């Protein structure tokens, strides 16, 4: 082999490394990639960054996860763990290493679970199982609350404590069921459909927090359908605030936690009830007092009407009339007397004028016969003895 006339260009190591790096970084599929493998050589130095090697039967890949991503991760890594790592491929130039700069790590299978979740969610949504119109109102004051959960979990204890505190009047119908594992879905369906539970006013379907696999029974199609077809309104309280299961979408009301589910199942508490009773009690008191005082008022008004119509008043007015009449009578009588006495006076004067005594006073005399007293008005009537009456007396005379 003849040496070339123009030898190939010679790169510095740095220049070549730079070119390789450019090559890798310009490949988009290498900058957003999921890689599955087994963790080995896991190391967590004090810096907080995480270093490990991902390997399978034939190859290995150096990986690094910076502190900030590592802090966000829920999963606890162990050597030998089969995982899916997301990140981008880059070059660590000082050592000529290509490696995966990881930002997310999930257990193998979670991706498949997530896809199954999305597929089932879309399907059930299309069927209308999650429609808002399907949601029924939660009764305000339930008498019986059905609970479907594990009989041994902390979730049950939390819910019972909450119910005891808020509304100890309710009766809890507990239908225990395993809440994780392959037996959980059919057991949950059976529990939800248990005949005795159908007498409850509302059902709480609950489970405490756990990993996505732990909560998986609540994404099972059979369970979700049982929730959607329940005759009794269902409140779901599965996992923590951030966990959403398909049961949450199918339930009439989604609570972030079991405790919150117990709170939402008892919108009216025993304290509210006590306040209501005491309000009602004061209402009947004030209504009764108002009734009595209104009756009192009508009584008083009737009494005054009665007083107005009383015969006493009539008697008074009659007696006044009598008085009036008697006053008028006496005044009439008095006038009459005066009138009469004036009349009498006049008559007296006329009588006096006619009196013979007045004639006698003028010098005339009345002569009567002594024997029979008859008046002598003619000479022939004269007798021997006669009486002569003058104004102040009489005397006897003899006929000569």
């Amino acid at each position, binding site marked *: 082999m003849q040496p070339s006339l123009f030898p190939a260009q010679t790169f510095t190591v740095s220049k070549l490394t730079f070119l390789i790096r450019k090559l890798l970084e310009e490949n988009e599929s290498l900058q957003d990639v999921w890689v599955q493998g087994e963790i080995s050589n896991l190391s967590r130095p004090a810096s907080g960054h995480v270093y490990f090697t991902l390997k399978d039967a034939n190859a290995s890949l150096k990986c690094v996860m910076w502190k900030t991503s590592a802090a966000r991760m829920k999963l606890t890594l162990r050597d030998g763990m089969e995982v899916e790592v997301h990140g981008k491929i880059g070059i660590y130039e000082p050592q000529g290493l290509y490696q995966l700069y990881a930002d997310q790590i999930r257990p193998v299978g979670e991706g498949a679970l997530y896809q199954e979740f999305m597929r089932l969610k879309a399907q059930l949504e299309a069927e209308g199982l999650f429609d808002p119109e399907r949601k029924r109102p939660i009764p305000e004051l339930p008498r019986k609350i059905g609970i479907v959960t594990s009989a041994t979990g902390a979730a049950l204890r939390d819910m019972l404590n909450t119910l005891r505190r808020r509304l100890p009047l*309710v009766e*809890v*119908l507990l239908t225990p069921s395993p809440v994780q594992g392959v037996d959980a879905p059919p057991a949950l369906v059976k529990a939800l459909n248990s005949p005795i539970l159908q007498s409850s006013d509302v059902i709480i379907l609950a489970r405490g927090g756990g990993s996505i696999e732990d909560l998986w029974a609540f994404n099972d199609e059979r369970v979700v359908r049982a929730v959607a077809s329940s005759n009794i309104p269902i409140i779901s309280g599965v996992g923590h605030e951030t966990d959403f299961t398909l049961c949450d979408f199918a339930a009439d009301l989604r609570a972030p936690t079991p405790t919150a589910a117990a709170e939402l199942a008892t919108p009216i508490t*025993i304290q509210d009830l006590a306040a209501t*009773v005491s309000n009602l*009690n004061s209402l009947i008191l004030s*209504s009764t007092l108002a*009734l009595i005082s209104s009756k009192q008022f009508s009584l008083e008004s009737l009494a005054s009407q009665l007083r107005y119509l009383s015969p006493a008043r009539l008697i008074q007015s009659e007696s006044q009339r009598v008085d009036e009449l008697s006053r008028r009578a006496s005044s009439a009588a008095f006038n009459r007397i005066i009138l009469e006495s004036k009349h009498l006076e006049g008559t007296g004067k006329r009588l006096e004028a006619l009196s013979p005594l007045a004639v006698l006073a003028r010098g005339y005399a009345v002569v009567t016969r002594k024997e029979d007293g008859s008046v002598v008005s003619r000479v022939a009537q004269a007798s021997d003895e006669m009486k002569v009456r003058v104004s102040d007396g009489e005397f006897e005379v003899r006929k000569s």
Partner: protein
Amino acid sequence: MPKASTKKSEKPIEELTYEEALAELEGIVEVLEGEQSQLEEAIKLFERGQALAARCGVLLEAAQLKVKQVAGDDVSAFEEESE
């Protein structure tokens, strides 16, 4: 409902459930607020209302969460594990 319950359910007050007592009490309030009642009747209603309110209070005071465990078609008392 409250209307019907004032129509002389006249069950002895000690036998009423909380809901029955409360419903009757609400009915009595409604009647008394109507101011149509006879005085004697009103006083009787008031007395019964007070007894009902007291009954409600006692029931609230004494309320104990009843937990029953459902297993198939059977119901039994549920024993909580003590802490």
